[in-house]
């Protein structure tokens, strides 16, 4: 009996843990998958946007304070003019269009969970996907 009980409690605990993390972040639903995406990022006064490779849509960036700070500093490191683009590869999911703030002027929002790569923009950033 003991052998059966332990795995049951472990599975229940892990399920509750994942449910709590979803509840703590209402914008992240269980069925929303986190994907690796490449594209170009712009940071500047009133601009914090990401355009995926091969797409015409532009998304407002949403992230925690730490990630936003890293993006801002990295953008500054690889650019010399306001609103210059840099290459960015991220783990993220896409959210609907915002209903307030500068974000409402864009096609949707992208929530970044992890920065995989950020560097100066170059011609070959998007490979075969183009831009």
């Amino acid at each position: 009996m003991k052998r059966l009980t332990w795995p049951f409690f472990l599975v229940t605990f892990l399920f509750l843990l994942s449910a709590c993390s979803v509840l703590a972040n209402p914008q992240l639903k269980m069925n929303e998958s986190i994907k690796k995406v490449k594209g170009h990022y712009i940071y500047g006064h009133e601009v914090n946007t990401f355009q995926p490779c091969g797409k015409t849509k532009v998304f407002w960036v949403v992230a925690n304070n730490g990630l936003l700070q890293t993006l801002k500093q990295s953008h500054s490191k690889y650019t010399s003019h306001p609103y210059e683009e840099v290459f960015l590869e991220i783990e993220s999911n896409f959210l609907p269009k915002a209903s307030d703030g500068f974000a409402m002027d864009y096609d949707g929002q992208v929530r970044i969970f992890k920065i995989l790569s950020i560097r100066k923009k170059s011609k070959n950033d998007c490979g075969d996907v183009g831009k």
Partner: protein
Amino acid sequence: MLDSSVGKNGKNSTEDVKTVQQIINLRDDLLTPLPKLVVDGKFGEKTQAAIDQIQSGLMNKPDGVIDPYGNTIKNMWPVEYAKPTGLGVRGTDSYGAGHHGAPRGRRTHDGTDYKSIAGKQVKAPLSGKITKISKPYLSGIDAAILSGVEIVASDGTTCWVWYIKPSTNIVGTVIKAGVSKIGVAKTLKNRYKNGIIDHIHIRIRTRNGAKVNPTTVIG
């Protein structure tokens, strides 16, 4: 300013009755000889009498009801604009320029930035009602420290004023352009080093969502 009609056979929701009662009290030039109303959102004989009195001064055939975007509300509280800080449009600094249409990455500046002095009062750029506290940024430190308001005018025009600290309990208040104080200007210099010009951002849309260059109406 109104979601539904107020007056004879109107829906008379508490929020809309409050808005009408505020406007009636602000238009005492049309209300005389009747006394001002208690702004409590309750529709009764006194509010109806005030509507009738005001309509009799505005139209030949008063109907005793104020409809959203109708002639009565538009005449009682006309769409008016004013410069919010008394200062001009932000010029070019190390972070870009503040005029409508200035570059913003792959887009252009959708509003107009009016120069401001941190801590100084900001007046309403549009006559209407403050409908909500509006946030220019949705996440990060900026979301916590930068705020603003949304104003809706009698014809449905909507105006957002960002980078201010809104006055306390201002949501639901009827305001007059160039007269009503809506908050105080915040500095942006803590967030953007190296010389950004302090300013407030104004964004305007018509009732059907068309973009308006604020400079064309505010100056």
